[in-house]
Structure formats: C-alpha cells, structure tokens
C-alpha cells in the first residue's frame, strides 16, 4: 500500500490530482492537507511515501514546508505540482531535492508520467 499526501489549498485541485493519479496507480491511499502547516503535521503523523505539494499556499508556503520536511527526513519523496513556473522558483525548489516539478494544470499525460514515477520508485 502506497501512502500519498496531497497538500494543496484548493479542494478542487486536490480532487483533480487524486482522480488523475487514481487512473495510473493501484493500491494507493490518499490523504489531504489544505496548507503547508497542515501538510507538515500530516507528514509527521502519517509518514506518507510521497508528498505532492503546491507552492503558493496560506500559512506555510510549499517551499518552506519542503524545507522542514527535508530537515526531519532527508529522503522524503516530494513532488511539486504548481502553477508558479518561473524558472528561478523552479531552480529554488529543485535545489531542495524534490523528485520532480510538474506544471499545473495536471493532465492525463502528466498524470501518467507521475504514475510511472511513483510506481517505479515504490517498487524499487
């Protein structure tokens, strides 16, 4: 069973991400958080295998949440899913050691790639 935590301040976006990923992943369970702070708490309590995190969020920005997550677990597997695709933002986030950076909106093609990525690394 793969545990996936989706951190996004939009419930709509949470649902879209879930339904897209559901198509390409078996045996996976989801949990959700509405902001960076809540995401951090869920991460500590639930120990998900993957975190999919938005950047622009209230309370704690995605960037800052990832920093904290990486402090407590340097091997944490983080996927960024964001509409802020400025290249310096991307560079900043990639320097934090994330698996990949996906531009919103999520579509079928991107979801399939994510499914492959998660499927592979969870088997490996």
């Amino acid at each position: 069973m793969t545990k996936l935590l989706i951190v996004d301040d939009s419930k709509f976006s949470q649902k879209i991400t879930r339904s897209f990923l559901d198509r390409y992943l078996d045996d996976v369970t989801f949990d959700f958080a509405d902001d960076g702070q809540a995401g951090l708490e869920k991460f500590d309590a639930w120990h998900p295998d993957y975190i999919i995190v938005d950047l622009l969020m209230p309370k704690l920005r995605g960037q800052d949440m990832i920093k904290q997550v990486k402090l407590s677990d340097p091997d944490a597997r983080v996927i960024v899913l964001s509409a802020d695709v400025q290249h310096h933002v991307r560079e900043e986030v990639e320097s934090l050691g994330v698996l990949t950076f996906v531009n919103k909106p999520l579509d079928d093609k991107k979801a399939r790639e994510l499914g492959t990525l998660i499927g592979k690394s969870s088997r490996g």
Partner: protein
Amino acid sequence: MADKLNSSDIMTELFNIGVGQAANTLSDIIGKRIDLSIPNVSILNPEKGKHVLDQYLAQVAEGTVMVSSISFDQQLEGRVSLLFPADKMHQFIALCLHETWDEEAVTKEFTDIDYDTIREIGNIVINSMIGELSNAVSIPVKYTLPEIDVLDHACADHFVVFGDSQLVLIMYLDFDIEGTEIAGAIVINMALNSLEEILDQINKLYNGV
C-alpha cells in the same frame, strides 16, 4: 451544479494557474523574479460586486486606475478588466523596462509607450487567465487585444453591467517585483449562464471530482 463555495474554489484554482503562467511569461520577458500572493476569487451578484469593487477603488487605487479590458462574446459572454492603481504604474513600468524611476521627474501623464507596455502586460495576464479557463473547460473563447484606459474617479459602474443574469468575479492580484508591490484586481463581468456552463463542463470533464 456545484454549490457556491465550491464554484469559487474551482474558479480560484483555474485563475491561479493562469496568473502563475502570466507571472512566468512576464518574468521571462523582464528578467526579474515576480512574487505572487494567493489570489482568491469572489463570485458576487452585481450589487455586492459593485460595493466590493468601489471599496477597492477608494482604498487601493484612490480613484485613479489604469485599466486593460477585453470583451468576449461567443459561447461564453463577458468582459474582463485588469485594474492597476495609476499612481503605482510609473514605477511598475520603469521596473518592467529596466529604467530608473524618478518620482520627481517627468509628468504624471502616461505616454504612448507606457500605454503599449500596459497593453502587453494586459495581453499577457488576460491571455493566460482566459486561455487557461478556456483550455480547462474546452470552450473556445475569442477576444481582441485589450483596450487601455486611465480613469479618474473610477467607480464600479465602469466595469460592471447590472442585471439579474449577471455575475461579478473579483480577484485581487498582488505582484511583488523587487520589493515594489502592485495591488491590482481582475474583474470579470460574466453572464450567469456562462459561469454555469463552465461549472457544468468541469463536472462533465472531471466526472466524479
């Protein structure tokens, strides 16, 4: 159709993506980092929309705004206006053009070059937002280049058509370019049935969402 809270969440997310893309394009063009705040879309009836908009105009823009606007009128009907407080625009334009901005120098007037700069920025923002919306719901939207205007003593009536079948979507848009904050707003005046069509389409496309 989704309930009110949901529809505002959906529109927020859709426009969020558009604004992110607009910031990306603008940042590429001017070669500067742009920090965004979290935009939030309110969907209001015209009366409430007018009230909220008048408040913004009085407080943030102190009456004078620079407006880029476009109309669209096929399957979806409406008008999008991108508002920026005029007093900040000289500074904003200078940042975009890599010029030093001198508060004392030059007039408060906008030159044709300033207008063209704002036309491009308006084009970028509106293209990204409406483009994203149009992609997400697979409804083509047709429009022209934005018209640019500077309005003294602007009030909500400039941007909002009143009528029972009308809705007003207001989204505050805060850019921060190298420490200069620009508090803009996007006002979308839309036919009620256009919003319904968008939400219906989303329900269809993301069935079970």
